[in-house]
């Protein structure tokens, strides 16, 4: 009971301090908002869209105009990928491998010739897009604009050379529903990172700085004059950290599920178990830091270094191992526990960028957990400051 009372004391003291409250609860949520806002449209502002093209016949005669158009729009703004069959193109569109699909049906060359020469039977082009996807909508719009320009140009040429009225190419736009199995969402991709960042913040700052601050200021000595022993003190402090992490993570869950509609897979036991495991690993590292530092200002600096390195080289926000980096830094990143912890959480949501094996997910963090705990246990008396 007294452990809970003391943990409550730690917690109230922490949340009333602006720094503690901000970094533990506000910052992860704010960062989540900012990153999702900035990066959720990632790719939509790019100048190159992936366009699938399925040509049901060899384009000949006036039909070759379409070939020229396709050549002119490639590689920018469209990177053209040719398809052999409709099914494959639709699958790739649904799975976001292409932004837009264009089908040039059988008879297009003949229709185009008839529309130009005889003012009969307009050619029909089918364009497929995913309306729910910004990139796809934009690609569709650009294609429509291009065909409008092409129609105008052909119309002018036809009128002046043949004295005919040209029948415009008809563009039919079809909306395709993206696959439920795969939808890239930066808020989904980011959610595990923000969760881990919240735990990391508590582990790298609250844990070591709190322990050292209490030791330096004599708070734990004052507590030891009561019936509280060092194990009670540590248990209460650990409970306080755990409760802070739980609250911070819960807050992110609420934001993630209500505002960003994060994948319901975050509610699965597997995902939550991975969060618990990550908490154990990161807390133990925080405890280890408290073993090294005499002053809390030193712990602040070391905590900051661990925090930044774990976060950015751990690939919280970008898949850094896929970047063109020096090999030594890649190996360093591969030695970090967060690389695996965040990837493991992402894998549960279908975003395993690096395709690590299940064993790798657990092995490296476990080594960190084990070593950190051993170091902390050996230094326990010193950290707790009693003879």
């Amino acid at each position, binding site marked *: *009971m007294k452990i809970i*009372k003391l943990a409550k004391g730690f917690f109230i003291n922490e949340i*009333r301090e602006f720094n503690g409250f901000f970094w533990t609860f506000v910052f992860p949520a704010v960062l989540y908002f900012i990153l999702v806002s900035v990066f959720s449209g990632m790719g939509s502002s790019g100048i190159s869209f992936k366009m699938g093209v399925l040509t049901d016949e060899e384009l000949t005669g006036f039909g070759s105009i379409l070939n020229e158009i396709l050549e002119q729009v490639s590689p920018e703004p469209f990177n053209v990928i040719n398809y052999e069959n409709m099914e494959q193109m639709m699958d790739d569109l649904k799975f976001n491998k292409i932004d837009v699909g264009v089908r040039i049906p059988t008879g297009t060359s003949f229709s185009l010739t008839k529309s130009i020469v005889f003012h009969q039977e307009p050619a029909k082009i089918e364009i497929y897009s995913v309306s729910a996807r910004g990139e796809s909508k934009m690609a569709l719009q650009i294609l429509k604009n291009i065909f409008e320009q092409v129609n105008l140009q052909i119309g002018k040429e036809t009128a002046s050379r043949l004295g005919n009225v040209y029948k415009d190419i008809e563009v039919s736009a079809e909306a395709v529903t993206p696959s439920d199995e795969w939808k890239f969402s930066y808020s989904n991709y980011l959610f595990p990172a923000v969760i881990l960042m919240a735990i990391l913040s508590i582990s790298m700052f609250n844990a070591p700085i709190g322990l050292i601050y209490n030791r330096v*200021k004599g*708070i734990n000595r*004052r507590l030891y*004059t*009561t*019936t509280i022993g060092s194990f009670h003190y540590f248990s209460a402090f650990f409970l306080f950290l755990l409760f802070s992490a739980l609250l911070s993570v819960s807050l992110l869950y609420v934001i993630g599920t209500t505002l960003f509609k994060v994948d319901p897979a975050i509610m699965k036991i597997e995902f939550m178990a991975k969060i618990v495991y990550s908490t154990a690993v990161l807390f133990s590292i925080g405890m280890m830091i408290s073993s090294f530092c005499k002053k809390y200002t030193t712990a602040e600096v070391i905590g900051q270094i661990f925090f930044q390195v774990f976060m950015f080289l751990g690939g919280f926000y970008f898949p850094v191992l896929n970047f063109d980096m020096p090999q030594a830094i890649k190996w360093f990143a591969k030695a970090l526990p967060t690389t695996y912890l965040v990837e493991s959480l992402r894998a549960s949501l279908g975003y395993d960028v690096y395709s690590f094996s299940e064993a790798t997910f657990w092995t490296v963090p476990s080594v960190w957990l084990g070593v950190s705990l051993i170091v902390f246990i050996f230094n326990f008396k010193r950290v707790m400051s009693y003879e």
Partner: protein
Amino acid sequence: MEDILLVKNLKKHYRDVRAVDDISFSVKKGEITSILGPNGAGKTTTVEIIEGLRKADAGDIYLFGKKISHIDASIKKSMGVQLQTTAFFEYLTVKETIELFAGLYGVTVDSRKVIEEFSLIDKTRSKVRELSGGQLQRLALAVAVVNDPEIIFLDEPTTGLDPQARRNVWDIVLKLKEKGKTIILTTHYMEEAEKLSDHVYIMDHGKIVASGTVEELVKSLGMESFVEFSTTQSKKALALLEGDFKIKAITRETLSIPTTNVEQTLHVLFSKSHENGFNVDNVIIRRPNLEDVFLHITGRSLRD
């Protein structure tokens, strides 16, 4: 009166420093016992060993008549402690701090009553960080008694406080004594020890160099009074009076003569002043105090 605490041959060394050097003392129930000494004398180390915060290298501690090898929770329940450095959770209120510490002892208290008793009622909802030095010390005292202890350790409770705040703390300590509490007080303020103590142990360099009631210690000097005066020719006065008295310079212009016969001392002083032409100003006749005792024993001032 029975001994509530008995310490025998207590030793604590830090490398070459003998912080506590084979000391023995006892504390009687219901009394205020002071350990008086300059900074670094070993007072805090001594009480922190008894409080269970440090381990002794050697020696025995008997508390409530029983030899104690380890200060466990059951013993701590009957102890109240106010450490030299007051450290509480800065963002908890006065009320919350008192209730938290009561909870750590497993007791419930009427926090309002405690707060009233220690004159903190207008600070009930103030955070610890908003308290003045005197208010913080009063809170520290309140927390020290929140478990209704039999024996209370107060480690330099008035250090850094202004005279008014110091007197408030003294009043509280005396009230605690009236309630039958046993108090062990460490201090380097002579006035504090004189005002509060039933028994005084004077410590220096880890050793107890003298002990007794204030009266006994003062009497041990073998003199009734001090005649102190100032002169602009202190060297001349010192040289002329050295043959008659154990005269000492307190400051550059102030000299002090210990005496058992004030009238005769004043007669000699003024005669020599008249004959030799040195001025005598600001003459004070005062009773000896613990400062004189400490000076007599160690050759140094408590403030040195």
